[in-house]
């Protein structure tokens, strides 16, 4: 049993390292890099510089570079705006955090408004139940009794 478990763990470790060492895919990188002249991702662009960048990516993948290495080389040539997604560090981290913060604030605001409105509706129902005038109540009872007879 222990041998079986050890063999399973070893197989998992091998599979993990194989995934980590898998070469980057051309299509993935083309979707993550922006053409500097047309401002769309490479996979959406047919401009001459986009074609040249696609060739560059193909050559670097064949040379064994990782996705991060290829992106770093493109950033070195064209600046950080060449990345479709801003890096998750430094000032650029704000681009990731601000939408989440805005979402959290939105949830809190909507929740607070919903709570306030529900409270107002509840208090409104109570307010719409005025005490019936005793004389009117007596007359209503009499009329109802007459119809029941």
């Amino acid at each position, binding site marked *: 049993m222990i041998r079986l478990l050890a063999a399973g763990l070893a197989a998992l470790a091998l599979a993990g390292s194989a995934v980590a060492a898998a070469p980057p895919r051309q299509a993935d990188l083309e979707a993550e890099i922006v053409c*500097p002249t047309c401002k769309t991702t490479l996979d959406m662009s047919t401009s001459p510089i986009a074609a*040249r960048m696609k060739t560059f990516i193909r050559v670097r993948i064949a040379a064994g570079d990782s996705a991060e290495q290829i992106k770093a080389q493109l950033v070195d040539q064209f600046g950080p*705006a*060449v990345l479709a997604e801003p890096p998750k560090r430094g000032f650029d981290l704000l681009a990731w955090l601000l939408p989440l913060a805005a979402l959290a604030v939105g949830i809190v605001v909507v929740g607070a408004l919903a709570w306030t409105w529900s409270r107002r509706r509840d208090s409104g129902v109570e307010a719409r139940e005025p005490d019936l005038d005793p004389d009117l109540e007596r007359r209503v009872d009499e009329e109802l009794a007459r119809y029941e007879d």
Partner: protein
Amino acid sequence: MTGRARTVGQIFAIGAVALLLVLLGWKLAHNSGGVADDLAKGKHPAAPAFELSRLDAADGKLSLADLKGKPVIVNFWASWCIPCKDEAPALQKTYEKYRAQGLTVIGIDAQDFRGDAKGFTKRFGVTYPIVYDGSGSTLGKWGVTGFPETFFVDRQGRLVGERIQGGIDTERNKAAYAEGVQAALGQAQ
């Protein structure tokens, strides 16, 4: 919702809309066509400053301020641009012809691979200074909308002549280019 909360909400909403309007105004004011727009209106704005690394020396930089007092032709190009290949010999010829009069040609290679640009200058025998602007950081200030584009700067650092869009050696641009060179030299007819 209480009256006070409603008032606060309304003030917040109006403030948010006002902020968005201010941002829109700022964006419109700063998203103009650069100095090219002023030049098209007949004005002679100061040429936007730049300091960029030289293509032929990784650590060397060149700025427009370094050429103060000299007439300059500023040419925006990229190695993947076909009209840039066509006009390169004509630019080189201008540089050689007027160099003795102090005129300099600066090529700003933008949105390009540095290695490709080096190959381009070697292939076309370019000897005038080339600076590298891979990210295209200078394009907005100058109002460049495509490659190639050429501007003329006089000895006072002002833009003169016309902005040439497309190859300088085309039939459409030949006359404007010749006039621009003379205007930069201070010999406008």
